[in-house]
């Protein structure tokens, strides 16, 4: 896809504006080294970057010329900048809720994750058909060029790129890859452990739990990458005497004569600009249709995926006998809160049921026991069933004695449990239906 076009005046770096079309060349008044431009045009590998390039050559010419003369030109289009800062926001929310907030912030964390997933998909598509500097092929560099750039960087004399430089490009791809892996592993955890989200129907609890460690390692990796990204931006800003943070806000990067010597592909600035940054209207039309496409495809995929009921989900009809025989005195606990072996022991000791006689006539006892065994935790793959399956050996019939329950409540003071409780609302155990 890429040809390293040996520019005459710098041996190692190639033009990032690879193939200005002849028409664009002819219409452009070149301000810098015409012979380089001609050379490049002659050596053009037919690579038409922008579908709308030629059509807009005339209209955007004036604009780009003025931008050129002002010493700065629009490099990062507005959708790209919006993507960047929305991603910063979503990642911040995901990081805070993921690293610091208690578990009941999971909803916010998940929605931050969905937002990140959406933004990354948009970015990938924008990398295929966005404006020139947003496209992946404008910053996929050959290995030797990347190495050369890094060597030059070590000597504090990196070549100037209008778009991403090879180091920055590496960072972009690594960040995008990490975010994709984080989003996917997050969905696996959500589907496996919580039985919610688009993968709920396809991932077991064990798989979801297995993905947790992976997700955490990636999250720490992302923190490191963000740090490296910020350091990189700082270094590049200092070395190039250009505020790159501001560039990601107003989209403009310097192409002033100061940079001309080392500025890669600088010669064809105006040609590139008028071709690769079409009028805002067109950029917006394309960006909005991309967003709609992602949303439409995303909700379509979600709708299709959500048709499958959660993995390990059991359709459970309501049982009237259970609801009244057990639910008259206490909450009719979901049968999946204890394993079958515990229900067996519990049903055998109803005459002294937590300090009360809760005996049943044989017929009711039989029905209740059958119901409990059939829908006991052994039969489900839900989070509660998995966590509560392990019971206390000395007290196997008490849900609150299970190691999991104890662990989750250990920080709650005894005084809280001793408080006089207000009447709980009647809890009706509903029949669960297949979705």
């Amino acid at each position, binding site marked *: 896809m890429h040809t390293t076009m040996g520019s005459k005046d710098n041996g190692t770096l190639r033009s990032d504006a690879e193939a200005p079309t002849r028409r664009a060349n002819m219409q452009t008044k070149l301000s810098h080294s015409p012979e380089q431009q001609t050379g490049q045009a002659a050596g053009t590998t037919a690579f038409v970057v922008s579908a709308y390039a030629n059509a807009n050559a005339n209209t955007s010419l004036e604009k780009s010329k003025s931008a050129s003369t002002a010493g700065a030109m629009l490099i990062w289009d507005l959708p790209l900048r919006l993507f960047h800062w929305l991603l910063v926001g979503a990642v911040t929310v995901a990081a805070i809720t993921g690293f610091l907030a208690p578990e009941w912030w999971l909803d916010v964390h998940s929605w931050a994750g969905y937002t990140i997933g959406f933004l990354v998909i948009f970015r990938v598509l924008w990398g295929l058909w966005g404006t020139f500097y947003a496209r992946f092929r404008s910053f996929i560099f050959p290995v030797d060029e990347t190495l050369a750039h890094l060597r030059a960087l070590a000597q504090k004399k990196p070549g100037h790129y209008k778009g991403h430089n090879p180091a920055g490009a590496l960072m972009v791809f690594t960040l995008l890859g990490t975010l994709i892996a984080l989003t996917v592993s997050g969905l696996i955890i959500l589907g496996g452990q919580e039985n919610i989200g688009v993968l709920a129907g396809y991932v077991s609890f064990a798989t979801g739990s297995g993905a947790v460690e992976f997700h955490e390692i990636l999250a720490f990796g992302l923190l490191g990458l963000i740090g490296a990204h910020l350091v990189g931006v700082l270094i590049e800003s200092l070395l190039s005497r250009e505020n790159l943070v501001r560039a990601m806000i107003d989209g403009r990067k310097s192409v002033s004569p100061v940079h001309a010597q080392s500025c890669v592909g600088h010669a064809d600035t105006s040609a590139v600009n008028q071709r690769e940054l079409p009028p805002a209207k067109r950029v917006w039309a394309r960006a909005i249709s991309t967003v709609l496409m992602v949303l439409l495809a995303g909700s379509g995929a979600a709708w299709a995926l959500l048709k499958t009921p959660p993995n390990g989900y059991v359709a459970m009809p309501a049982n009237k006998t259970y609801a009244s025989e057990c639910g*008259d005195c206490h*909450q009719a606990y979901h049968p999946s809160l204890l394993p079958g072996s515990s229900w067996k022991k519990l049903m055998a000791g109803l005459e*002294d049921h937590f300090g009360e006689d809760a005996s049943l006539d044989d017929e009711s006892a039989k029905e209740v026991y059958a119901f409990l065994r059939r829908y006991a935790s052994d039969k489900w793959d839900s989070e509660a069933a998995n966590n509560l399956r392990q019971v206390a050996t000395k007290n196997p019939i008490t849900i609150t004695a299970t190691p999991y329950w104890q662990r989750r409540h250990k920080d709650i003071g005894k005084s809280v449990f001793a408080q006089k409780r207000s*009447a709980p609302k009647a809890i009706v155990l509903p029949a669960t239906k297949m979705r």
Partner: protein
Amino acid sequence: MKSWNGVSAVLAVLYLSFVLTPAPAAAGPAQDQILKHYQDLAGADVTFSADRGKEFFMAKHTGGKPKSPSCTSCHTKSPLKSGRTHANKKIAPMALSKTKDRYSELKKVKKWFRRNCRSVLGRECSPQEKGDFLVYMMGQ
């Protein structure tokens, strides 16, 4: 004159019987059925008494589970008020006037007498105790 006296005497008797009889006011056929069940068990010579029922309800018993020495442990001292189970679930008032569908299903009545007599007294209650209790609650 005599005939008038006769009429007023009949009216007076009717009036007094209406006022004085501790009739199970709200009890319907379903409740009567259940009362009859316990009457049959207790024998025809036993007359159920609401006063004895009240005494039984309020009394502190021994022999049951430590958590529940009395009916009032859960049902409170007023049959008109709702109570709480040990698991803190609301129990509708025991008085028939407050909970209209009480004492209408023999299976349920039997179940609760069995469970709660064992919890409170540590034994089954006698048909007479059950009858007294029912007459008391149906009259409340």
